[in-house]
């Protein structure tokens, strides 16, 4: 169950200029957290900036009760979080519905019948992240590695340039095969990471997990629909409460009957089946 904790920051780093990695002590949060879930963080004591900021859970260390978040400094709230000299952090979490690992495994298993027929899917997993969207995927990959599935998982990472491929090294160390793409061509494929995904989909993977900026996810969803491969995407919407109470975080989806409605990204998401999101 989600909780409100005011706790000690155990470390704060700058993995690349403009990015910040914070680790804090929250044993029960670490225990409860699932990949794709987020925490809702207060940026300061006062009323300006007022609202909490949603940030994905980047890593957990359940043994030592530690949680990590990785974020990009983009505005006032994240700037305050990155430089606050204070050693305390006020977080709510874990919140939201994360990546459905069970679902993915069922889909990866050809005998389950969950994967669309005729795709000849290989049961492989593709994890694709763009920009700061890699933050929650790191936690997902920790869990995938932990369940011994790194051998059949391919990781595709995209960034503006080589210096911003934030989780590349960590993911390679976990034993994953990683392919990278950069907008400026300073590492790997020169172009969007969705170019790598289009190639990888030709090998008929069983399931795809994606997180990144909206235009990237839109392309991911289109590619998956075309290839008939199931997957999940983690979306970003503006949030106030983070707990399903205010209806701020509406994400347009297609329901089971094919009708378009809004779902709350904070409790029904932020992870949605790729085929449901209306872009």
């Amino acid at each position, binding site marked *: 169950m989600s909780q409100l904790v005011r706790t000690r920051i155990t470390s704060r780093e700058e993995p690349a200029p403009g990015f910040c990695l914070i680790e804090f002590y929250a044993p029960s949060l670490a225990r409860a957290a699932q990949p794709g879930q987020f925490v809702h963080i207060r940026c300061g004591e006062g*009323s300006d900036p007022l*609202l909490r900021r949603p940030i994905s859970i980047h890593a957990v260390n359940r043994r030592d009760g530690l949680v990590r978040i990785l974020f990009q400094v983009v505005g006032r709230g994240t700037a305050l979080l990155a430089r606050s000299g204070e050693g305390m952090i006020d977080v709510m979490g874990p919140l939201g519905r994360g990546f459905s690992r069970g679902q993915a495994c069922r889909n990866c298993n050809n005998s389950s019948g969950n994967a669309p027929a005729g795709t000849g899917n290989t049961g492989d997993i593709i994890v694709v992240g763009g920009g700061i969207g890699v933050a929650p995927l790191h936690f997902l990959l920790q869990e995938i590695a932990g369940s011994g599935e790194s051998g059949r998982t391919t990781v595709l990472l995209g960034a503006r340039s080589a210096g911003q491929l934030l989780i590349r090294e960590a993911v390679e160390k976990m034993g994953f095969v990683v392919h990278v793409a950069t907008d400026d061509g300073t590492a790997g494929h020169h172009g969007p990471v969705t170019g790598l995904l289009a190639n990888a989909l030709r090998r008929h993977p069983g399931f795809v997990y994606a997180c990144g900026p909206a235009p990237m996810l839109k392309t991911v969803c289109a590619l998956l629909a075309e290839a008939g491969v199931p997957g999940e995407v983690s979306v970003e*919407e*503006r949030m*106030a409460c983070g*707990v*399903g*109470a205010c*209806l701020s975080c509406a994400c347009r989806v297609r329901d089971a009957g094919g009708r378009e409605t809004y779902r709350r990204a904070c409790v029904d998401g932020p992870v949605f089946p790729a085929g449901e999101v209306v872009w």
Partner: protein
Amino acid sequence: MNLAVNLGGIKMKNPVATASGTFGFGLEYQPYIDLQRLGAIIVKGTTPSPRAGNPPPRIAETPSGMLNAIGLQNPGVDRVVEEILPRLAGLGTPVIVNIAGDTVEDYALVARKLDGAPGVVGLEVNISCPNVKKGGIQFGSDPRSAAEVTRAVKAATGLPVIVKLSPNVTDIVAMAEAVAEAGADALSMINTLLGMAIDVDRRRPVLGNVTGGLSGPAVRPVAVRAVWQVYRAVSLPILGMGGIMTARDALEFILAGATAVAVGTANFVNPRATVEVVEGIEQYMRENGFTDINELTGLAQRNVAGC
């Protein structure tokens, strides 16, 4: 020490309620607080049929406040009565349902369907929503229409009726007098202030709906003033709200003339805000030698010369 208040026939064990639209249908905050500590839960605006709401982005943060344009997204009164209210009925906390519509008949219809619903102790009539094209605000800015809605709702229900006033008017006292005359049992104020924000980099409005309602600490002085003015002119009990973050903020409203208060935007910042306001009021009373919360209502009025 007595914290219990009577808001136009609605008995509350303490003067702290949740503001409509900020507390879902009540259960979302259960992991963070004991809902039984609340004086009342006021649930999201309910309309005759389901509403999808406005396109995103639906909120924008502003200095010490936020704009929202949710667009009264709700599952419609039938589902509220059948599915949602039964879940709240067991809580032991009184539930007030906020109602809205496009026409006078809409309001009456929703009121009728809620009459006798389990756990519901009163209705809050939203004649002041700035985020829907028809209805809402139009009733909230014209005293005659506001009175008409009030009469129709009163005729449709046996429950106490609180009418929620908009600050987006030239003369809030005239509105209060009109709905009092039409039979309202209590008044609540304020709903959000109409506002907007523009994204300078994208050179377009931030909100999908273009305009939205401003709430949070930024609006508190406007809200306290509204309560102050209406308390002097109208004898109905007032539910005060607008930017209450702490017990001291709540006490401003009570001292200005509010019988009870509602906590809205603060829940987003501090999910324990409601309970902390209750505790803080108790502490203030203890420290200042008050034994009954009702002694504090309007006390600042009596401390002003010539009042």
